[in-house]
């Protein structure tokens, strides 16, 4: 009996050690040299694997960062400037600070404001609906309301408001990875500068129809009246195809256009309630000065 046990132990140990030796040599032979910095960079990245950088996962981005001579075109939107500085330190390269961005929904056509003209009853994704026809309202440009943006968001930063049928971005959670921008077939989502205190002014409409048609299909559509263009002191607003667009780089958040818009298509977000007209201009001055301090 004891010999059986002994034999078993010996033979198994022998097999084990032979296998270990073979494995060791095989591992040596097939060893792949890897830049240790890739691992370090990956460590520094947020590990969200969101693809917001344009690479497949954080690992892919880390490899790209290590490979690149100039890393300034590369940016991790989730980690933001902090992470990029850390990465730059690891790699000994330069990186510029970038303005933090946040997704905004450029459509205000809620159930109340934009009457439905038909009912959609297909697969509940925006992309299939948009491949089929112009949508269940008179406006063929606006939000389709089936939440493809919500599905792709990995940070739970966007949800559908059941009351309005429109998606809502939770600014604090949004990392500006851009997944929703890519997912939206009507391209109504845009990444815009976060600004101080998350203050934003933008045209919440993408309707390119003529004024009358746009207005008929949606109460809060941009009708291309060009009033905002005229009132803007910074020439930040352009009008194309009956649709106004505020350039975030030129806009100084003066809020003049918001008041001027006859259809309330321009939204101001996170501003204090308006007081007297004079004071509000003063307020903008403050914002401007504080922005300068930031830079």
């Amino acid at each position, binding site marked *: 009996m004891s010999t059986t046990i002994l034999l078993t132990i010996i033979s198994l140990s022998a097999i084990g050690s032979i296998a270990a030796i073979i494995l060791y040599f095989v591992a040596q032979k097939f060893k792949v040299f890897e830049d240790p910095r890739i691992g370090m960079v990956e460590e520094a990245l947020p590990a969200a694997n969101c693809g917001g950088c344009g690479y497949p996962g954080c690992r892919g981005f880390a490899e790209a960062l290590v490979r690149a001579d100039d890393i300034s075109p590369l940016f991790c939107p989730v980690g933001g400037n902090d992470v990029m500085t850390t990465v730059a330190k690891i790699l000994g390269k330069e990186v510029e600070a970038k303005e933090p961005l946040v997704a905004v929904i450029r459509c205000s056509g809620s159930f109340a404001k934009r009457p*439905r*003209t*038909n*009912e*959609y*009853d*297909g*697969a509940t994704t925006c992309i*299939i609906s948009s491949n*089929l*026809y112009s949508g*269940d309202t008179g406006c063929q440009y606006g939000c389709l309301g089936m939440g493809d943006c919500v599905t792709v968001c990995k940070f739970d930063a966007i949800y559908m408001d059941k009351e309005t049928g429109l998606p809502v971005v939770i600014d604090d959670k949004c990392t500006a990875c851009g997944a929703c921008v890519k997912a939206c077939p009507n391209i109504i989502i845009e990444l815009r500068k976060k600004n101080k205190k998350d203050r934003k002014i933008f045209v919440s409409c993408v309707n390119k129809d003529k004024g009358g048609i746009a207005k008929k299909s949606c109460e809060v559509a941009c009708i291309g009246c060009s009033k905002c263009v005229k009132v803007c002191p910074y020439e930040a607003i352009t009008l194309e195809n009956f649709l106004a667009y505020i350039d975030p780089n030129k806009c100084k958040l003066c809020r003049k256009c918001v008041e001027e818009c006859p259809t309330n298509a321009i939204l101001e977000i996170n501003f204090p309630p308006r007081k007297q007209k004079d004071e509000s201009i003063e307020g903008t001055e403050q914002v401007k000065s504080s922005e300068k301090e930031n830079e």
Partner: protein
Amino acid sequence: MNRLITVSPSPHVYEDTTVKRLMFDVVIAMLPALAMSIYFFGMGAIIVTLVAVVSCLMFEWLIQKFLLKQEPTITDGSALVTGILLAFNVPSNLPIGIIILGSLVAIGVGKMSFGGLGNNPFNPALVGRVFLLISFPVKMTSWPVPGGFNTGYADAVTGATPLAIVKEGLGKGDQLSDLMAQVPSHMELFYGHMGGSMGEIAAVAILLGFAYLLFRKVITWHIPVSILLTIALFTGIMWMVNPQTNADPLFHLLTGGVMLGAVFMATDYVTSPMTIKGMWIFGIGIGVLTVLIRVFGAYPEGVSFAILIMNAFVPLINAYVKPKRFGEANNGK
């Protein structure tokens, strides 16, 4: 116009088949076999079936509601089918506790752990059955002898199945012809007068169910026929080579759940291949494995194991056996 018209992608008409209807068709197809088992095993059959069905439904509901936090879908009938199938696969005098445990394993491990209906690689009822067979080998193989409708639940007389009698006897070196004299005649086997699991005994009732399933186009004939053909062919060859030690093919077809397995278990949608060619491979595999286990294996009965093993191959079959595409081979000029 104040009323809104609906817009949706084509097609705009649908066949009235639903998952629910398919499942209830399967239940209807199982009724003759259930009736036969009640006829032969009495109260025990009713109690076992009820317990299995109720506990399967309950476990599915509990797991979906509290563990997975889904909308419970027990009304689709799939848990009902699993419950009846599980009952079909156990002796009619199995203690209630064991049946409930089997249901838990069938639904919890066999089905819900993979994500519920449509995602389970193995037939849930068989997972439950095999679990019980391994855990409670004695209870699971002490088959009540058919005692008629008035047999009570606990007082059934137990005996071996025909397959077990033959297998054990041959192991001891008995003559096959003597052993065949101990087991019921082929006619008796056909209408189910033998010891065994509840649903597997009456071949005639199962064939009736098969005909119903075919008529309602719930299943195609390929899987059952390929299994039965393979078993008949395989055992037939062995019988011709040596009729002294190998039972005849008809005996193999009529005993030990071959019919039940081929018609109700192997044809489970979720765990069977998608293409006709795949179905043939699947069926032949089950047939061969069944005979191998029966003739060379430790268990007298092998259908459950054979189906489970082939279930594991289904994803592979689906990946490699593709339907012939239109225009793939250009036969025109």
